C-alpha cells in the first residue's frame, strides 16, 4: 500500500495544475524543449503594467546609492588605474525588507485577479516575508512552509527571524524539520485549502524582478550617463539573475551579469546534521549550482528562473568574506543590512579591484537586518555549533568546519566558477530527465543552446561527448 507521502506525490500533477493559476502543458514542445518566452509572457502584462502593479503595492523605486568609501577602500589596494565605482540598490527599503517583494507583488495580484482566497509558498528565505506582507495588504490568507529546525529543534537565528516576520504579517508559518518532503506537505495544504501556489519560480514572480533590472538601467543612466558596466547578483534559485538580466535587456543595456554565491561545497542540503553547520540559508552554492544546472527541479513544471541563459560569470565567496563585508558596509557606509544579501557585495569588491576605474559595478540588492538575521548573531550561532571562527586567509576556510574572517580587505578574492562545466552538467541533466534512449532533436539542441547561452555546435559537442562517455 502506498504511504501518505507516496499517495500525495502521485497526485502532484493534478494538485499543481489547479494551484498554479496556469496550465504549463500548452508550452511543452518535447521532453527537453518548451516555449520559454511564451510561458514568460502568458500572464499578458507588459513591464510597464507590472511596474504599475508594484507601485500600487508599495514595491520598488528603492534608492540607488554610490558607495564612495567602499570604492576608495578598494582603490587603496587595487593596481594603479583600477578600482571600479561601486553602487548598491537598497532593496531592503521595500516593505518587507528585500527584492522578494517584487516577486510576491505580482503573484498576489494574480491571486486576487483569479479569485483565490489565499496563497501558499514554501520558503525559508525573505520571500516568505514578502508573500506574507503582500497577502496582508490584499486581504488574503497566507501559509508559509518553512524548513526551520534540525531534529533537536534548533534553528538558525536567521531562519527563526524569518518565521517571526511572517507571523508578524499575519501568516500561518508551518515550521518543519529538515527534509525535501516540505514540498509534499505544501501539496497537502494546497489540496486542502484551494489556495494559489505562490511559487518563487513562476513566470509571475520572476517577471516581477524585471522591474529591478529596468530601474538599474534607468537610474545608473541618470547618475553616470550610461547603464552599469557590471551588475553583481546574489544567486540561489536563479530568479534574481534571470529577472534582473531580463529587465536590463528590455532597456537595451549591455551589462555584464555576474552571479555570486557563498561557497558551501561539501555540505549536504538535505542533511539533518549539516543543516546548522552553515551560516547562510540562501544565496549559496547548495542552491546556486543545482538550480543553474537543472532549473526544473523547482516546485513548478517549468522553472521561469533559468540563470544560465543570463549569467556571464559566476563567482563564489566564502562565509567569512561576506561577514567581513557586512561589517565594513556598516562602518564605512552607514548601511546595516543582512549578511545574505551582501554575498554579491563581497564578490563586487573582488571584481571592482580588477576592473578599470571608470567601470561601474552595481550590487543589485540588500536585505533587511534584525535580531538573528545579523552577522554577529550568526557568528555566535556558528561558534555554538562547534564551527571554528578565526582571523586569517579566507581561502583556508572549510564550509561546515571553519569560518575565516579576512585580516585585510586584500584577502577578499572571489573564485571563478567554470561555466563550461555547468553547461555540460545542464546538458547531462536535460538528457537524463528526457528519459533513457531519448535522442535530442535539432529543436532540442537549439533550446539547450538558448538555455545555456551557448551555441548549437557547443551543445552538439557536449551531447556527443556525453553519449560517448556513457
Amino acid at each position, binding site marked *: 500500500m502506498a504511504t501518505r507521502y507516496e499517495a500525495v506525490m502521485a497526485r502532484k500533477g493534478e494538485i499543481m495544475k489547479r494551484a498554479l493559476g496556469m496550465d504549463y502543458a500548452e508550452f511543452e514542445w518535447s521532453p527537453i524543449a518548451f516555449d520559454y518566452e511564451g510561458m514568460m509572457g502568458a500572464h499578458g502584462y507588459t513591464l510597464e503594467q507590472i511596474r504599475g502593479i508594484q507601485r500600487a503595492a508599495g514595491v520598488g523605486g528603492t534608492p540607488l546609492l554610490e558607495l564612495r568609501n567602499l570604492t576608495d577602500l578598494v582603490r587603496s589596494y587595487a593596481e594603479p588605474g583600477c578600482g571600479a565605482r561601486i553602487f548598491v540598490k537598497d532593496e531592503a527599503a521595500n516593505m518587507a525588507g528585500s527584492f522578494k517583494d517584487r516577486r510576491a507583488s505580482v503573484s498576489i495580484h494574480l491571486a486576487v485577479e483569479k479569485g483565490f482566497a489565499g496563497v501558499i509558498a514554501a520558503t525559508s528565505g525573505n520571500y516568505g516575508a514578502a508573500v506574507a506582507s503582500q497577502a496582508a495588504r490584499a486581504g488574503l490568507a497566507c501559509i508559509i512552509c518553512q524548513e526551520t529546525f534540525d531534529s533537536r529543534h534548533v534553528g538558525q*537565528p536567521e531562519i527563526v527571524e524569518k518565521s517571526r516576520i511572517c507571523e508578524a504579517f*499575519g501568516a500561518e508559518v508551518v515550521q518543519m524539520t529538515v527534509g525535501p518532503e516540505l514540498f509534499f506537505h505544501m501539496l497537502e495544504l494546497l489540496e486542502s485549502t484551494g489556495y494559489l501556489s505562490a511559487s518563487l519560480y513562476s513566470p509571475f514572480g520572476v517577471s516581477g524582478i524585471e522591474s529591478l533590472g529596468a530601474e538599474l538601467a534607468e537610474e545608473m543612466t541618470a547618475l553616470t550617463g550610461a547603464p552599469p558596466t557590471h551588475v553583481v547578483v546574489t544567486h540561489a534559485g536563479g530568479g534574481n539573475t534571470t529577472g534582473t538580466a531580463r529587465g536590463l535587456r528590455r532597456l537595451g543595456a549591455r551589462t555584464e551579469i555576474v552571479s555570486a554565491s557563498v561557497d558551501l561545497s561539501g555540505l549536504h542540503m538535505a542533511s539533518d546534521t549539516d543543516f546548522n553547520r552553515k551560516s547562510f540559508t540562501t544565496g549559496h552554492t547548495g542552491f546556486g549550482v543545482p538550480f543553474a544546472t537543472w532549473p526544473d527541479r523547482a516546485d513548478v513544471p517549468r522553472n521561469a528562473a533559468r540563470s544560465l541563459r543570463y549569467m556571464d560569470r559566476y563567482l563564489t565567496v566564502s562565509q567569512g568574506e561576506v561577514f567581513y563585508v557586512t561589517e565594513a558596509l556598516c*562602518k564605512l557606509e552607514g548601511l546595516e543590512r543582512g549578511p545574505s544579501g551582501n554575498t554579491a557585495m563581497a564578490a563586487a569588491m573582488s571584481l571592482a579591484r580588477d576592473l578599470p576605474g571608470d567601470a561601474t559595478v552595481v550590487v543589485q540588492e540588500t536585505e533587511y537586518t534584525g535580531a*538573528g538575521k545579523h552577522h554577529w548573531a550568526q*557568528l555566535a550561532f556558528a561558534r555554538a555549533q562547534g564551527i571554528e571562527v578565526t582571523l586569517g586567509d579566507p581561502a583556508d576556510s572549510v564550509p561546515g568546519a571553519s569560518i575565516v574572517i579576512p585580516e585585510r*580587505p586584500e584577502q577578499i578574492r572571489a573564485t571563478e566558477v567554470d561555466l563550461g562545466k555547468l553547461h555540460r552538467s545542464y546538458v547531462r541533466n536535460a538528457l537524463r530527465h528526457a528519459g533513457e534512449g531519448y535522442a535530442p532533436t535539432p529543436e532540442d539542441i537549439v533550446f539547450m543552446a538558448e538555455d545555456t547561452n551557448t551555441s548549437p555546435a557547443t551543445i552538439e559537442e557536449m551531447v556527443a561527448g556525453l553519449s560517448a562517455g556513457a
Partner: protein
Amino acid sequence: MSDEFRCLPGDWVEVEYVLLQPADRATGLPEDTAAQPLRAWVKGFALADGMIGDEVEVETMSGRHVRGHLSATSPGYTHTFGTPPPEIVGIGRDLRVRVAEYRAKAGE
C-alpha cells in the same frame, strides 16, 4: 488560569506534530535525516484547554484546524543580535584609517 504550562480556549499557543514517521519518508535521504521523523510546529488559538504535551486542537491564522501536542503557551521569540565577535569588532576602525590614508595620499 493559563500560564507557562497550561492553556485555555482562545489562548495563542504552539502545537507540535509528526508529519511523517521515518518509515514513511521520501527515499534517497541522507541517513541522518532518514532516521528522524519529519516534525512540524504551528501557532494558533487553542480550541480547548490543555497542559504542555497534551493533544490540543488550534485554529491557525489562515483558519485551519490543526491537532498537535501543546509545545508552548504564548510562544515568543528570543533570537538576538549576539555579542560583538572579536574577529569583527576592529574592522570598522581599521578600514576608516585606510580610507583616510588613501584620500590623504591621493590628494597630495
